[in-house]
């Protein structure tokens, strides 16, 4: 349970593996020239934008910005979204575009976790930590010819930067919905029956509205395992950590997924020492193993970080009466007590739990699974008997398919597509994920073990090719040559199964790969696309170009493995150069 935030994500990747991804890309013939790219992409079947008649008739009378004033066929709204996070916001915007009369119910602040307590403020802190790290890296500075004397920081100013960014994005989000005429209803929403929602203060939902369609987008909260006492000062979750009220000398981070890793980047850059506590046997369990290993070499080993793996934090007591924070560690398997850590603070980053209490799901015979709302591949909520609940959808962290802000938004858009009469199934394997450490890590699709398992099961061969940031001009110019990009693809069809990147701006680079997966573009096609020189994107260019397909009609049972020999030759050449100094 304590493992990481990444676990639910990778689990869902596995489970959805069979559904969306296989659809179109693999079947397309690989005979394309550059000029075909766009045309092919639009017609690409992997998005499954089918032309079949609407599954559900929807009143699309709307010409006004937020649907017709009274044109919702007896309903107050065409669509009511419970929860104004990134998922709800994305759905609302698309719904208005489709002419649906839309309302969004929010009991807290617009923007949800991402904007207020997640991605957004953490990016502000990471922007600071990246610069601090660079300025403190004497060797790096010297090699660029820069002289900097003892850089420091003002904690409150850093914290303010994060807070200001969150406010700014929050008001942007609110303004964009107001401008489009989305009704923002304040309160906590409860489903009281079919197409009926009540909202208002907690416990007193006094206003009732009806809606043709309802989307649950209530998100998640930090998951705190039992035995851990949160005081918000010395033992806290990401919610408190993002306020950066203190920079402890020594902080234990429980969980080494995205959240833990990003905070370790922030804290070590600001001068803290970090101890990771990870329940699984290795750090960063959700990542491709090769990337995780490299990440450990780049992001953990050289920093002031140590770690305990295969252990649970069974009890964490906040600091009080001059005593430090006490963390009891027990063996993850035998449950025997292993040791007690004494640290200045503990950040609990053991993943996130769905926030679905009080939604009134019992009124419509829906039973949550570990708090998650069960949905099918179209995000339609399933009731206790396994039947689809009509006109009710759940997107984002609350369904647990892929707990990422942009996944929630994509799911929301997919739902609106369906409501508007176009069947749509989101390919979750085309959704990228990123960890904003320095350097960044990003990924899309399957990890190598997942791809191998799929290949074994379905009887095809995969190839893996890799390129290094060391060979990239822009990376070398930035002195940021630590990095690797890795492509996993089908040897017969050239279908891209997964891309994993660790390196400078990896989070921005991944989209070329995720778009290719979403549009069903294969390696033999995308390799002809041109990349500006010199840019980091050439790392991917080189990656696609190095992918070789099985020659047509040749049954070669032994796959090529170019990376290893290549690496050897490279290291030999490097060794020659360095020995000549």
């Amino acid at each position, binding site marked *: 349970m304590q493992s990481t935030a990444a676990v639910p994500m990778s689990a869902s990747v596995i489970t959805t593996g069979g559904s969306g991804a296989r659809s179109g890309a693999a079947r397309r013939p690989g005979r394309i020239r550059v000029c075909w790219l766009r045309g092919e992409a639009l017609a690409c079947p992997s998005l499954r934008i089918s032309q079949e008649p609407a599954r559900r008739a929807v009143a699309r009378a709307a010409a006004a910005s937020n649907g017709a004033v009274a044109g919702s066929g007896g309903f107050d709204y065409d669509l009511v979204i419970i929860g104004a996070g990134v998922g709800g916001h994305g759905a609302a915007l698309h719904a208005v575009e489709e002419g649906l009369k839309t309302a969004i119910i929010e009991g807290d602040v617009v923007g949800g976790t991402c904007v207020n307590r997640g991605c957004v403020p953490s990016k502000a802190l990471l922007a600071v930590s990246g610069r601090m790290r660079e300025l403190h890296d004497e060797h790096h500075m010297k090699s660029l010819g820069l002289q900097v004397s003892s850089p420091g920081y003002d904690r409150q100013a850093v914290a303010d930067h994060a807070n200001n960014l969150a406010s700014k994005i929050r008001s942007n989000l609110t303004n964009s919905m107001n401008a489009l005429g989305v009704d923002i209803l304040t309160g906590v929403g409860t489903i009281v029956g079919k197409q009926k929602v009540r909202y208002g203060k907690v416990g007193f939902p006094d206003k009732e509205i009806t809606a043709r369609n309802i989307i649950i987008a209530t998100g998640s909260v930090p998951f705190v395992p039992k035995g851990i006492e949160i005081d918000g000062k010395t033992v806290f979750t990401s919610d408190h950590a993002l306020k950066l009220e203190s920079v402890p*000398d*020594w902080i234990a981070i429980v969980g080494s997924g995205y959240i833990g890793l990003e905070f370790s980047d922030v804290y070590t850059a600001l001068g803290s*020492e*970090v*101890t990771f506590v990870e329940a699984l046997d290795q750090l960063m369990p959700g990542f491709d193993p090769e990337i995780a*290993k490299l990440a450990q*070499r780049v992001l953990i080993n050289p920093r*002031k*970080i*140590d*770690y*305990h*793996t295969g252990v649970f934090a069974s009890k964490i007591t906040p600091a009080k009466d001059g*005593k*430090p924070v006490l963390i009891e560690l027990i063996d993850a398997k035998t449950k025997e007590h292993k*040791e*007690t850590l*004494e640290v*200045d603070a503990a950040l609990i980053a053991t993943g996130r739990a769905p926030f679905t209490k009080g939604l009134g799901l019992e009124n419509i015979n829906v039973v949550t699974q570990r708090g998650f709302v069960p949905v099918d591949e179209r995000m339609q909520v399933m009731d206790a008997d396994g039947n689809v609940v009509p006109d009710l959808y759940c997107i984002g962290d609350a369904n647990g398919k892929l707990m990422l802000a942009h996944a929630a938004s994509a799911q929301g858009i997919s739902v609106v597509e369906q409501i508007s009469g176009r069947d749509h199934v989101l390919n979750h394997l085309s959704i990228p994920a990123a960890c904003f450490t320095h350097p960044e890590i990003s990924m899309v699709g399957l990890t190598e073990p997942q791809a191998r398992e799929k290949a074994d099961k379905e009887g095809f061969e995969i190839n893996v090719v890799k390129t290094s940031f060391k060979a990239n001009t822009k990376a070398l110019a930035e002195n940021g040559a630590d990095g690797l990009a890795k492509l996993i693809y089908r040897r017969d069809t050239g279908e891209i199964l997964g891309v994993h990147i660790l390196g400078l701006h990896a989070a921005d680079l991944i989209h070329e790969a995720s778009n290719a997966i979403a549009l069903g573009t294969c390696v033999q096609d995308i390799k002809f696309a041109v990349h500006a020189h010199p840019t980091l994107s050439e790392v991917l260019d080189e990656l696609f170009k190095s992918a070789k397909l099985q020659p047509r009609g040749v049954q070669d049972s032994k796959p090529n493995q170019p990376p*290893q*020999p290549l*690496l*050897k*030759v490279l*290291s*030999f050449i*490097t*060794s020659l*150069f*360095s*020995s*000549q*100094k």
Partner: protein
Amino acid sequence: MAGLLYLHSTLLTSASALRRRAGAPASSSRRRCRVEAKIREIFMPALSSTMTEGKIISWTAAEGDRLAKGDPVVVVESDKADMDVETFHDGFLAAVLVPAGESAPVGSAIALLAESEEEIPLAQSQFASFSPSSSPPPPQETAAQEASPPPPAPAAVSAPAPPSPATQGGVRVVASPYAKKLAKDLGVDLFSVTGSGPGGRIVAKDAEAAAAAPKKAAPVAAARPDVPLGSTVLFTTMQGAVSKNMVESLAVPTFRVGYTITTDALDALYKKIKSKGVTMTALLAKATAMALVQHPVVNSSCRDGKSFTYNSSISIAVAVAVDGGLITPVLQDADKVDIYSLSRKWKELVDKARAKQLQPHEYNSGTFTLSNLGMFGVDRFDAILPPGTGAIMALGALQPTVVGTKDGRIGIKNQMQVNVTADHRVIYGADLAAFLQTLSKIIEDPKDLTF
């Protein structure tokens, strides 16, 4: 195969590496193995230029397996990547010296390869004479500070440190992550350290202080080496490399020229700027480098027996005794770098040398070597020329000496005797004499050292 090729080069000492550079790339390809009853050692290869130790991920061959040249034997994790390492001799994997999961420094033996099946037991009995990787190498006399070429890699093996504060005899040690890292790198036993952090926690500066404390006493402590008397102890890899280089040095026609230099002015300067972190070693290296600027031939070397190789930069290697041998950290561009930076660099190099973290270019790129035994009170000695370089200077102690002055009086001056050993194929007597005269002028009027 490329991985293996590099394996050779790392085991060669700088001297051989220099020769290889000179145009005989393949000549040394078979010298990896010390043949002893046809039992060969398989060494930890250097898989990248910055790799100093490697972790064994897994052995792909088991003890007793028959291996053909080119077969993968072991998967090694370096600081950069994981790589298969192949054998390039036929034979039987007789003994695994470093089990999977443990680390070994580059160049140390990790397995034994027997040529025939009958020799496996012999190899295994030989195994007993190798120290397992998790314990330090057998203690060696460290006093021998002959100037010899740098060994290929730091010798001691660090076992993977437990990632947590361990308990020992029920006593728990609370140390911060960085303190633990430092303790491992500096070889500090945390159980012997008193913490100054909150709640008695050991923090980074405690580990550093503990590492610095015994350092000062080191020359005295080295007096009573703990060696197993009455037994024969095999060379470590580092010592083997030293031995081979010493024998190779006999092929070079060397000669020596000595000089006595008055150091009063240098002493005065040293006292003045000592507080700014300047060390005597840095001052002497700086003076030597400045003299070399005027005498490029003394900074040259002879690599093929028929030409001068004039080095483009002046890099002063300085011999330092370390556990189980010696190493020669290099002060690059000592003529150009100011004395304060040079002193800082020197401190950094010595710390790295003691922590066994020097990278190859930091110990094998010297163009001129200094060896100093003055701190032991040695007044003069004779250094052996490291193969591949042109000259080495042995520095004696700075000591008060009764001297006659030109005006017919007798006075006391601080003097130091230096003795240069040089390769007579490229450096002649007059060259050395002129160089020493320049050096003496610089030291006797050292104002330029601080420019």
